[in-house]
């Protein structure tokens, strides 16, 4: 309910999810920043597990965060509602939150992303699971493709933005791959670079 659009406290928001034991993978702009992109983002995007117990815990966390829908309609948090809404945009006391159950380019959302995700220390004792660079690049590329099917300038602007994110993530993969090669620790990055 208290939702100044300028509020941005990602640690506070993630701490509420942590306190309520919510299982999710961090995706979107914040995940990209944590992976090393140079962009500004103003919200937190998560892909939660849709197991009944987890949806229940997510509901509790959202309550604690005084979450409300960005479109001001009534918020219902259950598996069916989440599945019906590809991107649930929320305003919370800690800033904007997007709940995406099946991000572009993934199959079965959480289960798919969790394989490549790693826990990252982001301060204040928080260690969220963050989507891998390869998965983030895959999501941006898929989103750019989807936006390419839509008419209008705004869709085109967003498409260009996603293409730029995808390129930046590929540069990060190349940099990481180069470092791994130098150290003799080559590993599969899950896609061609």
């Amino acid at each position, binding site marked *: 309910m208290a939702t100044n659009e*300028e509020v*941005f406290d*990602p*640690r506070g928001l993630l701490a509420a999810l942590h306190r309520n034991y919510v299982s999710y993978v961090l995706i979107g702009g*914040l995940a990209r*920043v*944590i*992976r*090393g*992109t*140079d962009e*500004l*983002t*103003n919200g937190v995007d998560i892909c939660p597990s849709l197991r009944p117990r987890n949806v229940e815990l997510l509901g509790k966390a959202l309550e604690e965060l005084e979450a409300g829908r960005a479109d001001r309609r009534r918020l219902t948090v259950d598996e069916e509602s989440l599945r019906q809404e590809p991107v649930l945009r929320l305003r919370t006391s800690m800033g904007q939150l997007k709940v995406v159950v099946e991000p572009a380019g993934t199959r079965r959302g959480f289960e798919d992303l969790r394989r490549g995700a790693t826990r*990252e*220390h*982001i*301060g204040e004792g928080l260690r969220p699971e*963050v989507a891998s660079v390869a998965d983030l690049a895959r999501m941006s590329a898929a989103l750019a493709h989807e936006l390419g099917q839509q008419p209008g300038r705004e869709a085109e602007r967003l498409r260009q933005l996603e293409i730029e994110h995808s390129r*930046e993530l590929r*540069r*990060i993969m190349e*940099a*990481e791959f180069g470092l791994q090669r130098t150290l003799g620790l080559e590993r599969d990055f899950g896609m061609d670079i």
Partner: protein
Amino acid sequence: MRADTVRSATLLREARLRAGLSQQELAEVSGKDRTVIARYEQGVVAPSIDTLVEILRACGFDVPLELVPYDSGPDERIAQIQMLSPERRLDRLIDRRRERS
């Protein structure tokens, strides 16, 4: 070739080739010794800015020398950010957003 002499060496060689001059011809036009031109192009030594401009002008080119804000480019920026821990990357985002507002 030393890293800090690469830029002037590349620039000089490109200017000479675009002007269609041999090293000997450029030496005659610029009044420098041919071996000096060769050493500049090989990056063995770097010319001073004044000498660089002088030789480029002998090739029919100029380099505008003016101060502009430094842009490290995407690859260097990424390399710098990669040096930070995830925690510091998040702090950096929060600071940048605060500065902007």
